[in-house]
């Protein structure tokens, strides 16, 4: 029994880390868009789904290397980010209702287009990394470890970008005071487009990787968006530290709770935990978004 307990603990820790890193990649993109453009991009989950499908299509139908497919997916979805910024978000700047309308329109079109065009067959992107790492009694798939490393390194890259580059500084400026930033001559459209591209590229990366970790469905974005929502609300919307911290918590809960609880109860308990935290800190752990 002791052996299986150790196995369970190690597997759970690794799972928690992999899940957290993927959730954080997505939530970070969402936060970027919120901070810089002040929009809630409800279509973020769909972007993730599209990224996964592009990678899958490139890797299986076209038949190129998975890593190359991943890069193509990131590039295509990144370009789509520019399109979104220009034609979806910019015209409705600051109007949350209209943003919801266009996002839902986009979701409806993309999800149904994918659903119709795919045959009934399960679709999984081929594994990026083969093999199992065995350390003593513990065995872990290399793929998980690599995914975790990719997640962490992307995270570090993004944080370095925000904190160390001129564009990153401009992004933070736009996030803090839009009009102040405009008056410094900062090209806000460029900054927003850049934020959109980064957010979409991160979503596409997470989607492509998760496409081989799990399997693809046109609805895969919905479930992950709920996770993103949990992270944002718990961490405090707009706070990057909050995303990192809450991402770890949600990922860990996701990996740990199912060990004791069954199916839907897991999600309910997790929501309950977050709601209890919110009752004491309505603005989230790191949020400042309270009036007066």
């Amino acid at each position, binding site marked *: 029994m002791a052996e299986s307990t150790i196995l369970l603990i190690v597997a759970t820790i690794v799972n928690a880390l992999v899940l957290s890193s993927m959730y954080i990649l997505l939530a970070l993109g969402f936060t970027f868009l919120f901070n810089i453009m002040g929009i*809630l991009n409800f279509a973020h989950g769909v972007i993730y789904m599209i990224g996964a499908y592009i990678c899958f299509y490139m890797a299986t139908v076209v038949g190129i290397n998975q890593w190359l497919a991943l890069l193509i997916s990131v590039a295509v979805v990144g370009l789509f980010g520019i399109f979104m910024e220009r034609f979806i978000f910019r015209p409705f700047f600051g109007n949350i209702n209209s943003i919801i*309308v266009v996002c*839902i329109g986009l979701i409806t079109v993309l999800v149904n287009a994918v659903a*119709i065009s795919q045959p009934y067959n399960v679709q999984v992107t081929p594994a990026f990394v083969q093999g199992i790492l065995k350390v003593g009694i513990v065995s872990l798939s290399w793929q998980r470890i690599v995914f975790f490393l990719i997640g962490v390194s992307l995270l570090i890259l993004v944080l370095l970008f925000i904190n160390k580059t001129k564009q990153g500084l401009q992004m933070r400026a736009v996030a803090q005071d839009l009009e102040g930033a405009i008056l410094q001559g900062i090209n806000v459209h460029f900054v927003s487009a850049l934020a959109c591209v980064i957010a979409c590229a991160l979503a596409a990366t997470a989607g492509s990787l998760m496409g081989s970790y799990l399997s693809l469905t046109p609805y895969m974005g919905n479930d992950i968006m709920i996770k993103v929502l949990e992270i944002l609300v718990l961490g405090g919307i707009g706070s990057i530290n909050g995303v990192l911290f809450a991402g770890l918590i949600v990922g860990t809960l996701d990996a740990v709770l199912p060990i004791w609880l069954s199916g*839907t109860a897991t999600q*309910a308990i997790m929501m*309950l935990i977050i709601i209890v935290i919110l009752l004491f800190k309505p603005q989230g752990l790191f949020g400042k978004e*309270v009036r007066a």
Partner: protein
Amino acid sequence: MGSMIAARDSSSRRKNYTQIILYGILICFLLFIPLFFQSPYVLHLFILTLVYIIAAASMRFIMTSGQIPLAHAAFLGLGAYVSAVLSKHVGLSPWLSLFIAAFVAMGVGIFISFPFARLKAFYYAMVSLFFGVGLLQAIESLGKLTGGLAGITAIPTLFNTASKVPYYYCFLALTLVSLVILYRFEVSRIGWNLKAIDQSYLVSSSVGISEVKYRVLAVAIGCFFVGLAGGMYANYNVTLSPSSFDSSVTLWMIIYVTIGGMNNFSGPIIGTAVLFLIPQYFSGLKQYAPFISAAILFLVIFMFRNGLVCIPGLLMAFYKRKKSTSKSR
């Protein structure tokens, strides 16, 4: 001076008359619908439209206070499930459970809106969206009582008949009463104060409006009516499933309000009627039908920013401009 007031009075009275006549025509028209359309399916669609009209109108009421209640569909579900469970498992009369559901929804609404009433609009939107998801998860995890993910069936109905006509008239009456109450609230002091809070919370708090109190009040009123709509839905539709109240349904309700016109009381009514009924007409397209809804969304949002209610205003402006240019020639 006195005569001027009198003149204005009579003109406004005349306008009131035309208004009453317009309402009369509309209500007569709605009353005769079961005579025009005997197909039970068309009536079924109208009954569902009425339910969603209450839901969307109550959502707009909350939105006038600057809050974006993205848990609204979950409250619709809460009302529906409370009414369903009470009438099915407890054995209460559906007529009673319907109103209990409305009060339960109101209670839960008050309970959650208190801690979150000081949040900024965007944050409130996200927190309430999250709360809606949590509420549905809770309903889902209640297993045998609510049927879990699969849902609940064989809910007792309001009328013991297969005909849809009694439902139609009953729901029409409930809808009209709800709308009149919501309208009275909106044009009352409460409504003005809510709008003041939306415009500028600083000003409103400086003139002595308690922001938290009014925001909670808005949520309470909105949740009461959406709970009522949920109960109506449950005891008419016989089946319920959590997926009918998930976050995408909330977003669709926002769309009903926005496409109809957020700034007008009749916005959600028109929006719901258009967006609920038109896609039904195209349901023959099967899996291609959702594209029709999406096309309507894009068309309206890019052409009429303020929703469908602004179309007559735009038409009149166009007509006037045309008239004036022809005159100047």
